[in-house]
């Protein structure tokens, strides 16, 4: 790869000044004038019930109310990968918090007051709040018409059950593998649900104008996916893609929660109901917790067989996921894990069953890490235990089994480049692996190292596009539709264009998308936009470059092959003094001696689709397709202090190494590492979601659901970037955004075990659990009945055979 000048530098963010001056606008900052209407949603108070009657008469008459809308007005379904979600509940409600009706009023207060006047008559149905209940033979069905739902071809729902999808991966012969093993360990790990907690909640304003076009201003990661989902669901209104416009200003945090479509479609139909007037729908913090999407809970059984020498010979990984009331997005998380639950290791014999199960809990979907954080908790914990059981150093064990370029993946394709061993060595050194640290009195210090990998989970034809156009002064506008959700996407795209065109980053304006004006992007998810959209931007810049050279060649009678770009000029290899600044001709052209002008406004387009992927693997084995574009690998290590009395955990130091292929902007990669570690540590140490026995979320606020503050961070965080080029990435880059939180939970579990010999197998890893374990009390026996996870018994008793997974 030739040397780059702008790519690889920590350019200042293109949105930096806007964000520190307050110029950056988020959806709720936009003004819609005095005609704006406000909507409030009426929510189900039951986890599972038939809707006998929804009486809106009192609400409709309340002061300030202009309209009350119910499921009768909009009996439609929607969904990203499977249409199993209702715009409004129809004949039944499926979780506490589900939208039943909406009140539209002149003020937010009037809407709120009236919403309380809507009377809902329920007929209770047995609520399915546990995975075991959901999977038993005569289970109450949450989606009796599962067989009729539209879905993507790589989902395999089982009609007549609560199984929304079942991904099976089979490689080699797992039974033979276990026979060859010298040691086998089998155990169960549980990970509860988590909430995204962007500081900005979901917010959207919709306008269905008098000409019949629908515009939504949404806080979203997915403008084009939203347009597509809406065009599909709202077809009955005669809306086509060109009639729907999604505008997405800055987003105050996404983390997967603003991918796809959730509450936005409610605002869309309310706008349709109120033709001619804009309608605003903002989620409260409580609704943000209850009715967007959470991270799925999972119970996982890991069975691993190894040789005395340390080689992994067989892995059986069975995961049952609590998808909640709809699986339109969550089933793809389950799918992604079903393909990749070997972790970043060479495993010759593999059997993975990843089962997506409907429950009467709030719906789940994408969350930074997309299932990988969840399965790595069990897998990485397990690996440390296996290594120790055969008397091998866990770091050495990981190094030995680490996946390498060309290795055959569980589904038969080959591994891309990535330096996992290099990452392990760097992190081990950083945390002084193998050296015992002195502990203060009453404390113990433990160390750990956990690996991670992750691939974007996307349809095989997910694509990106970019437009570039010059302005008179040689500055450029770049339009793309990836979202700036904080990761620095816009800056990185500007850097990619700047590199090709030799233009400073500050001369490129790149802003958030509008589906009318910006080119297509599938979605900003999966840490894939740097790679995918970066390729599109690079292609657009190359097209611009070709035009620049051709224009000058034609106007000056030169050969394009002799020309090149440097310092915002077209220069010549034949004539050192020749330098034509872009600004002199990119709009107005070049004058020839006779007064004619050659050229015209110079612009370029680029597109990218990963044409080598395919989702058409065999449903029974997953062999034959090529579902993932590439994996990013790395590892994280920690030094953790445990208070032997209280169980309190203090992370003294963490280091994380990730192979970014090429860090287009190293400071932004560092930002992803540090932010990801703190978010990952939060899931391990602080966040503890609780549901009551009736399926109601008990802590939908930051008082009771703790996310870290500036006081709750590790003593030291060391970000490490490795660069093993991704051959098909822009300048060799691949994604890193989600990966940085994936290894955090097992890393903490291992450090606790190292410090005080206590092995926690149920997240979160709170001081309470450590303190109990130190006193020999099994948390499972005292945990009470409010839980974040959809299984109330002891994990070791969980019936994995239920649903036929065995």
């Amino acid at each position, binding site marked *: 790869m030739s040397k780059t000048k702008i790519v690889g530098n920590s350019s200042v963010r293109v949105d930096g000044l806007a964000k520190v001056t307050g110029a950056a606008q988020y959806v709720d*900052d936009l003004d819609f004038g005095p005609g704006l209407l406000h909507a409030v949603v009426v929510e189900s108070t039951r986890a599972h019930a038939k809707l006998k009657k929804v009486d809106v008469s009192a609400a409709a008459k309340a002061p300030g109310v202009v309209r009350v809308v119910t499921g009768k007005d909009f009996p439609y379904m929607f969904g990203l990968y499977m249409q199993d979600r209702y715009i409004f509940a129809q004949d039944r409600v499926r979780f506490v918090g589900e939208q039943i009706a909406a009140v539209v009023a002149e003020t937010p207060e009037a809407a709120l007051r009236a919403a309380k006047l809507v009377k809902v008559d329920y007929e209770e149905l047995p609520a399915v709040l546990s995975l075991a209940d959901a999977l038993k033979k005569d289970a109450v069905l949450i989606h009796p018409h599962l067989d009729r739902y539209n879905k993507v071809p790589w989902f395999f729902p089982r009609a007549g059950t609560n199984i929304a999808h079942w991904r099976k991966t089979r490689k080699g012969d797992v039974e033979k593998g276990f026979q060859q093993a010298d040691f086998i360990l089998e155990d169960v790990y549980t990970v509860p649900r988590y909430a995204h907690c962007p*500081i900005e909640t979901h917010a959207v304003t919709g306008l269905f104008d008098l000409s019949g076009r629908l515009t939504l201003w949404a806080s979203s990661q997915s403008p084009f996916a939203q347009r597509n989902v809406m065009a599909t669901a709202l077809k009955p209104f005669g809306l086509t893609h060109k009639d729907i416009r999604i505008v997405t200003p800055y987003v105050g945090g996404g983390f997967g929660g603003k991918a796809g479509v959730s509450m936005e479609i409610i605002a869309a139909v309310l706008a349709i109901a109120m033709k001619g007037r804009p309608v605003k729908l903002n989620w409260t*913090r409580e609704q943000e917790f209850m009715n967007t999407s959470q991270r799925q809970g999972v119970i996982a059984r890991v069975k691993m067989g190894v040789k005395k020498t340390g080689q992994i010979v067989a892995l059986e990984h069975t995961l049952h996921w609590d998808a909640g009331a709809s699986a339109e997005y969550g089933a793809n998380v389950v799918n992604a894990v079903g393909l990749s639950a070997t972790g970043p290791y060479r495993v010759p014999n593999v059997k993975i069953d990843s089962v997506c199960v409907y429950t009467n809990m709030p719906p789940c979907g994408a969350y930074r890490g997309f299932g990988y954080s969840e399965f790595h908790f069990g897998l990485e914990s397990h690996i440390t235990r296996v290594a120790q059981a055969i008397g091998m150093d866990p770091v050495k064990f990981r190094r030995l089994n680490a996946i390498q370029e060309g290795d055959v993946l569980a589904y038969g394709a080959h591994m891309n480049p990535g330096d996992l061993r290099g990452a392990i060595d760097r992190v081990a050194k950083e945390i002084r692996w193998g050296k015992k640290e002195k502990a203060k009195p009453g404390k113990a210090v433990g160390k750990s190292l956990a690996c991670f990998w992750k691939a974007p989970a996307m349809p095989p034809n997910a694509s990106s596009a970019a437009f570039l156009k010059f302005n008179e002064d040689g500055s450029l506008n770049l339009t793309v539709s990836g979202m700036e959700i904080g990761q620095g996407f816009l800056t990185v795209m500007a850097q990619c264009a700047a590199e090709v065109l030799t233009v400073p980053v500050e001369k490129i304006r790149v802003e958030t998308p509008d589906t009318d004006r910006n080119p297509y992007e599938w979605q900003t998810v999966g840490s894939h936009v740097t790679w995918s959209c970066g390729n599109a931007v690079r292609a657009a810049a190359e097209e611009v470059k070709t035009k620049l050279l051709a224009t000058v060649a034609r106007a000056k009678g030169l050969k394009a092959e002799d020309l090149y770009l440097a310092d915002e000029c077209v220069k010549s290899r034949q004539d050192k003094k020749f330098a034509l600044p872009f600004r002199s001709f990119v709009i107005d052209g070049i004058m020839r001696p006779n007064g004619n002008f050659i050229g015209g406004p110079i612009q370029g387009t680029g597109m990218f689709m990963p044409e080598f992927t395919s989702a058409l693997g065999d449903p029974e084995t997953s062999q034959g397709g090529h579902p993932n574009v590439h994996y990013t690998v790395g590892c994280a290590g920690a030094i953790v202090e445990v208070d032997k009395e209280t169980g309190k955990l203090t992370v003294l130091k963490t280091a994380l190494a990730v192979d970014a292929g090429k860090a287009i902007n190293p400071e932004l990669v560092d930002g992803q590492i*540090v932010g990801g570690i703190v978010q990952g540590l939060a899931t391990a140490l602080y966040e503890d979601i609780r549901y009551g026995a009736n399926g109601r979320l008990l802590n939908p606020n930051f008082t009771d659901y703790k996310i870290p*503050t500036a006081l709750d961070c590790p003593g030291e965080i060391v970000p490490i970037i490795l660069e093993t080029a991704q051959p098909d990435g822009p300048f060799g880059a691949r994604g890193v955004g989600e990966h940085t939180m994936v290894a955090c939970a097992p890393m903490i579990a291992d450090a606790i075990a190292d410090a005080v010999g206590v092995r926690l197998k149920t997240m979160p890893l709170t001081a309470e659990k450590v303190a109990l374990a130190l006193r020999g009390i099994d948390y499972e026996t005292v945990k009470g009945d409010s839980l974040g996870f959809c299984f109330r018994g002891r994990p070791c008793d969980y019936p994995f055979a239920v649903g036929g997974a065995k």
Partner: protein
Amino acid sequence: MIQEIAIRLNGEVRRAAVAPNETLLDVLRGKFGVKTPKEGCGRGDCGACTVLLDGKAVRSCLILAIEVDGQSVVTLEGVGRDKPTALQKAFVKNNVFQCGFCAPGMILSSAALLAENPQPTEHEVREALAGNLCRCTGYEPIVQTVLAVAKKSAKKKPAARRARS
């Protein structure tokens, strides 16, 4: 009862008719068109709505608009209007913020801290920012930048510092 209030908002006297239950946050955003105080929770947990009330960082979602009648309120719109402050410049240069939703509150809380305690320790910075949640950055770059700006200002104008402390 609707009541008229007058506040000095970012240096200008602004008046509005407010109901007794309207929060300062709602009035700032809805009646004065000042949009940098953000609502992240509406109950005092997140700090996104932070403003300076007579120089002190407060959560505007927990304060009733009628309570601040006659007082002075500064929002991010009133900070570095003509030219970004040293703190704002450093936040840009170090690529500190990601989504930026917490930035208005963080900047005001940091500014209030530095005004009162120009040479804070790292722990003091973390304490001063503990009421401002950020889900993106892991706080590290924010804290380090505040410390760096404090250190630099100490070098630049020791006299001013002594005068204030």
